[in-house]
């Protein structure tokens, strides 16, 4: 099912038509509705695009490898003609101009305004991990389960690009766009068993991506195999005049080489990533992966990223501060939900925001504003920016010392059942899981 080799080849050879592919995905989306991965399915648009793609293939002029491939898009990207909601009441009922996605486009479910969580807090309801319905999980559940209700046993996707991950994992699309600010693409990818790529900051344009933390946000790529991730990266990366934070260096799309000789590879194992709460199963798999490389001839060494344990608190301050700023635009005047309150502009804004934001988002806005108060700015915001530099420098030092690549786990444990997940409050659970992904966003 890899795009790069199988599907793209089938489209090119004419064995499969883009419209057929599109129809299959659409019907699979319908039959897997219980996963709740999709907010909007733009059926007509998708089919129209598929038809246009088919014409191009017949002429022998496909736009590229991805022409005709159904792709899902996280609902914090503005897509022409499709309502963008960010799974929040704040933006329900809004259509906005923006870039159109690759071939077919649909909008996937996330948690509201992309705050990190298990993709469970959105107004459209939680996303279910497709693996909840796998034979392996069902067998495991039967052994442990005391509950009569098998339906409530389902497992979360992680987040915040949970819908994107579930969509790719359940075969309803061939690739999906997510976003990654603290791990939001990598986390659900890990939990849903797919590839999640967080591109380097500045590589892919953020134009059209509703910002959370401008200095850390990136569009994320979710696919079923790494070759596909390379293909999607190839079509998205590069300077965009509409996003001045994209670097101007020339980007050339590439194919992943067949890596047969790893003897020149130096792999670093950051000891701080053996974090509190890391499950023994994941620790064992991490060791196993390291051993695979060692046995294949790579140089595997332990390294240190000493400021790792401060990345969560650093992120907490910087993220809430930027969120407070970025959420200020949601006032109901130009787009999105607007309250009926009419006595004054300020009270209309306040009522609109009261109605549109959930607890988590409100909490972040208020915290962020606290850290940005004059009396706190130096002690919290600036302090966090200094700690950020220390975290980023940890990576620079390690890579400068000859290490080519770092090997780490992505999550502390495997995906938990929804019933277990909703017991703790959002901030605690985000804080626990993000330790393995966040520092990479700090460092770019």
């Amino acid at each position, binding site marked *: 099912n890899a795009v790069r080799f199988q599907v793209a080849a089938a489209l090119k050879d004419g064995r499969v038509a883009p419209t057929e592919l599109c129809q299959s995905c659409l019907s699979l989306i319908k039959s897997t509705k219980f996963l709740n991965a999709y907010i909007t399915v733009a059926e007509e648009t998708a089919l129209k695009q598929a038809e246009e793609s088919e014409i191009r293939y017949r002429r022998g002029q496909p736009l590229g490898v991805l022409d005709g491939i159904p792709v899902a898009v996280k609902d914090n990207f503005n897509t022409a003609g499709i309502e963008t909601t960010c799974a929040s009441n704040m933006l329900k009922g809004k259509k906005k101009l923006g870039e159109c996605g690759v071939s077919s486009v649909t909008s996937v479910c996330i948690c509201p305004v992309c705050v990190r969580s298990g993709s469970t807090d959105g107004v459209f309801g939680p996303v279910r991990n497709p693996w909840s319905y796998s034979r392996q999980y069902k067998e495991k559940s039967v052994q442990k389960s005391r509950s009569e209700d098998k339906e409530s046993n389902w497992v979360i996707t992680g987040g915040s690009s949970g819908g994107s991950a579930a969509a790719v994992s359940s075969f309803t699309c061939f690739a999906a766009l997510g976003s990654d600010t603290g791990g939001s693409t990598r986390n659900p990818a890990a939990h849903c068993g797919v590839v999640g790529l967080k591109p380097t900051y*500045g590589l892919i344009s953020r134009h059209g991506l509703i910002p959370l933390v401008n200095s850390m946000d990136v569009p994320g790529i979710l696919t079923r195999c790494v070759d596909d991730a390379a293909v999607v990266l190839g079509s998205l990366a590069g300077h965009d*005049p509409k996003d001045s*934070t994209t670097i101007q260096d020339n980007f050339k799309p590439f194919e992943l080489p067949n890596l047969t000789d790893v003897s020149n590879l130096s792999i670093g194992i950051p000891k701080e990533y053996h974090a509190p709460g890391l499950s023994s199963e994941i620790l064992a798999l991490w060791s196993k992966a390291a051993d695979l490389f060692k046995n294949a001839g790579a140089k595997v060494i332990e390294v240190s990223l000493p400021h790792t344990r*401060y990345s969560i608190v650093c992120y907490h301050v910087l993220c809430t501060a930027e969120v407070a700023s970025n959420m200020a635009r949601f006032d109901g*005047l130009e*787009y999105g939900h607007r309250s009926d309150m009419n006595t004054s502009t*300020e009270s209309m804004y306040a009522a609109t925001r009261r109605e549109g934001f959930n607890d988590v988002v409100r909490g972040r806005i208020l915290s962020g504003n606290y850290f940005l108060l004059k009396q706190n700015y130096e002690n919290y915001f600036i302090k966090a920016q*200094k700690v950020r530099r220390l975290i980023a420098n940890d990576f620079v030092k390690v890579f400068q010392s000859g290490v080519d690549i770092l090997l780490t786990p992505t999550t502390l444990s495997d995906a938990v059942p929804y019933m277990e997940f909703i017991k703790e409050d959002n901030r605690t659970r985000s804080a626990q899981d993000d330790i393995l992904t966040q520092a990479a966003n700090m460092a770019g």
Partner: protein
Amino acid sequence: QEVTVDVLDHLEQLALVDFRDAEGVERLQKAIQFADQLHEVNTDGVEPMDSVLEDRCLYLREDDVTEGNCAKELLKNAREKVEEYFVAPPGNIPLPKLEERETFLQGF
């Protein structure tokens, strides 16, 4: 160190978002406590980092008008409008003071 009602009130006015209930205030308290861990780190001589791209210049395009004229499209998104205007309720009216506002903080 507890956050005073004055600060909470100030935050509600700045953010135009309300604490809603005791849990909301508690959430802020915990957030501050959590953030205090930052003070364990020695940052003497360390410059704050705004962006990982700090060593580069942002791209600046030529000052030529290449797009626009989409007022009609943009106005479609707004709920209240008149011709080409977004309509707002009367301005220059400050948010009511704590005692007069409908806020959880009143009972604090």
